[in-house]
């Protein structure tokens, strides 16, 4: 059973995303092929955390299973939007202008592996 991810937290069958070592493991061990994900940052006017460092943790958790591209370089499976705060300016911009599957983060609280699993799950979107 797939449930959509809520912006306020994970609302999902706990076993559904058991793609890797374990749902909360440190790295992603998918049997799936590598996917292309577009990375887009908000402008970062007054971010509440280090956006670049968090994206690096997500990339590390993906353990090479994601090819990061820019949104000017389609095709891609999803767009990872890294917003610096809960105003999430970039998420709103992209969601209103495009049909892309958008996975959006607004803080660095979630375990990066959860973000990776979300990027791999085609039925999940934050748009």
């Amino acid at each position, binding site marked *: 059973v797939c449930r959509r991810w809520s912006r306020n937290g994970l609302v999902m069958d706990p076993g559904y995303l058991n793609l890797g070592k374990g749902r909360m493991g440190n790295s992603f061990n998918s049997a799936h092929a590598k996917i292309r994900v577009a*990375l887009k*940052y*908000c402008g*970062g006017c007054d971010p509440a955390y280090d956006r670049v460092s968090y994206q690096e943790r997500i990339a590390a958790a993906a353990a090479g299973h994601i090819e990061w591209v820019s949104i000017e370089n389609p095709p891609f499976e999803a767009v990872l939007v890294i917003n610096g705060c809960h105003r999430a300016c970039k998420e709103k911009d992209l969601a209103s202008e495009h049909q892309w599957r958008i996975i959006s983060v607004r803080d660095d609280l979630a375990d990066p592996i959860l973000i990776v699993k979300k990027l791999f799950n085609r039925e999940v979107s934050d748009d």
Partner: protein
Amino acid sequence: MIKTKEEYINSIKQLKANVYYRGKRVEDASAHPAFIPHINSAAKTYEMALRPEFEDLLTATSHLSGKKISRFTHIHQSVDDLIKKVQMLRLIAHETGSCFQRCVGFDALNATYMTTYDIDRKYETNYFERFKEYLKQVQEKNIMLVGGMTDPKGDRSKRPSQQVDRDLFTRIVERREDGVVVSGAKAHQTGAVNSHEILILPTQSMGEEDKDYAIIAAIPLDTKGITLIFGRQTNEERKLEGGIDSGNPEFGMVGGEALIIFENVFIPWDRIFMCGETDFTGILVERFATLHRQNYGGCKGGVSDIIIGASALASQYQGTLGASHVKDKLIEMMHLAESVFAGSIACSAMGSKTASGAFYPDTLLANCTKHNITRNIYEIARLAHDVAGGIIATMPFEDDLKSPEVGKHVEKYMAGVDGVSSETRMKIIRLIETMTGGTALAESMHGAGSPQSQRVMYQRLGKLGEKMKLAKKLAKIPEKD
């Protein structure tokens, strides 16, 4: 096209403008130690545009070419663009702790765009198309522009044409087949010694008798007849030393302002965007002022974030961060900083589309924002001095800390909490001193216009009559009373 920091610095090196510092000609403005901190600040606008985590604010899509351009050369196409401008300014201020200079030219471009459109509609001139061609070049080359608004003004009780020395306002001295010749000066010109061109604008509303003073034109700063004299700032020669005593060693204190003198400078027609249309000088000045006053909650909000952080560190290093009065002062500083930022966002959110298609912030709210800057930034600085303590005014030199004879004493008596070196504590104290005194404060008072120029706008736009009507209505007073 200038993309990188290195390309920008090299372009200034190539310019060979006639620049003076302390009475001496500067051969290479890109390499002069007094200018480097300002160059570093402006260079951040180029560097950051290339970084994916900042590009959303630092770049925009040109409505003329459809290409990705520096936001500093963009014409605002929406309320979102107006908001992004303010966010961008706060962001860059976090990286420099100082003015990065390009907003003045940015605002001059936008004000000129809107106004040339209006002039053409009335007079069937061709300024708007001419300006768009110029703008395309600016966007394509990504050059840095001085927004040349302020004239020296001489005797303020007299109009431009009434001055004893008529050069005290920049003016046309000759009209020719191929262009015009101007003389005069522009004062307080931010980023001038490290910019490529200046867009001169009339400094105030002009009457019919001031026709020669109603000119908008773009001039390369290495044009024959132009001289730039760099302005003195508080403690600026500490920057020549580098190190702790300069406070913010990599970046400037303010924008690096200069007096620019024009002695019979020729400008071809394709670079002239107003020439004698005095009835549009008032609206042009108001638009430039509004666009520029919009900025201050962004850049000064960002600079204030650094001052607040530095104040918290200073108190942490001396063991006072846990004191309730210190926490309260830091909270007050944050309140003041967010209040000015809120003003800039508000005037942007309430912006509207002009006839030219360009978007424009709410005039009254933009003026209110800048007016608050003339107060809140001084109060933030006052609180920073309070929190940091008298040491910001009495601390020994870095040379004393490094002296074989007295260094041990400085090290011993500059100590604060255990685990923090005296050198670390001295660095943060110098940063506070640099960012909260002298020229840094005066810039908040007078940049984008002195407070009286904002108060005038309340009289004009504050709708006092409507407010009186509202009060009468609630008090059940008849309209006629």
